[in-house]
């Protein structure tokens, strides 16, 4: 059995890495402890943050626990975020956006298949920034959510509609590559 402080640090690490609020029940399963024990630990972690005046707070939101920055630091965070590369599209985000733009409607699974890695993180960013939106459901089994680009996306790029996206063929290095790519492209666009 691990001591209380060990459990606390593992709990902190899990909450640190989580990108969504973590329900008590999930933590109970993870640490193989009853929910009331988890509640106790989480609350003691929260008190610890408060008492030691940390920049991080532990919040109970939307049915779960989540770490967040202390509101007092907001001015610094806003300046930091405004100046940092946070605003820039990463290469992964740019590629994901490009695939969504040219192959929409597209599911997470299709994106992962094309890029060879999960695109969930960048997709979430693109959705949060309003440039990618849900556009429907796959009629097939599983009913996967399908994604497409938003009106905001068109406006930012100065396009009236998707038909004004440049022809990919104009950007291909050579004709052979065009053939290879077309065979990989669906009938969509």
């Amino acid at each position, binding site marked *: 059995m691990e001591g209380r402080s060990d459990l606390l640090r593992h709990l902190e690490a899990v909450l640190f890495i989580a990108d969504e609020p973590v329900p008590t029940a999930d933590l109970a399963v993870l640490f193989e402890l009853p929910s009331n024990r988890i509640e106790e630990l989480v609350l003691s972690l929260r008190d610890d943050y408060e008492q030691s005046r940390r920049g991080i707070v532990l919040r109970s939101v939307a049915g779960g626990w989540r770490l967040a920055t202390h509101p007092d630091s907001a001015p610094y*965070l806003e300046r930091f975020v405004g100046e940092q590369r946070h605003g820039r*599209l990463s290469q992964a985000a*740019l590629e994901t956006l490009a695939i969504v733009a040219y192959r929409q409607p597209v599911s997470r699974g299709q994106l992962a298949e094309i890029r060879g890695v999960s695109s969930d993180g960048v997709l979430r960013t693109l959705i*949060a920034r309003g440039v990618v939106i849900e556009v429907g459901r796959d009629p097939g089994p599983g009913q996967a959510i399908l994604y497409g680009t938003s009106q905001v996306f068109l406006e930012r*790029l100065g396009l009236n509609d998707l038909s004004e*996206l440049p022809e*990919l063929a*104009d950007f291909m290095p050579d004709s052979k590559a065009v053939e290879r*790519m077309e065979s990989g492209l669906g009938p969509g666009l």
Partner: protein
Amino acid sequence: MTYAVKLDVFEGPLDLLLHLISKERVNVADVCIADVTEEYLRATAALGEVDLETASSFLILAATLLELKSLKLLPSRSTVDPELRLLLEERDRLLHKLVVYATFKKVAVQLENRMTANLGYHSRAAELPDELVPAAPEILRGLTAQKLAQAAVRALTPPDKPSVDTSHITRITVSLEEMVTQLRSRLEREGSGSFRQMFGSARSRIDVVMALLAVLELFKSQAVDIEQERPFGEISLTYRPPASGAA
């Protein structure tokens, strides 16, 4: 002798060559190509499907081994022979490539160790909290339709078909047919001569091999008589005109 050709440990022909040379401690000139081939076929059969890249890598390697074997078979007479020097230079080039490759192979292990040691550190794949989104610069700032199209091309183009570097294999510059024609017309003109005289100007060892094959071809069609007094001695060639009836 058997050679354990475990395909999953080989990623390229230099890898396989390196393995044969440094791990098995064999002299490639003594490697039986048939044995290696048999092992290779057995392994691919076990895999169930043939990976094009591995298959072509294997062919390249087999060709390399054959060429090195041919180097071994022909006697090296003099160190000043320019042709031999060329061959040795070629061999040095391959040796250099092997050394460079072996270095990277070794350092790759070190990189992996470092990565493993750092596996335990997880950083946040931080999504910007909603309250800070307004403070962030416009995410599409600076993005043009052209840049987007370029990114789409990058993302949607499948990787190039696997290709194999053949630069370490000597190209055949003269075909057997050409060599036979050349040799026949020269013998018609000169009547006889030594093999060395005829092919002293051959550009590379592979050309010498082709010349020898041409001589054997003419011998088979009874257009030339061959004489060699002792092993590795001069080979003298004498032209045999076609039977008078055909002339």
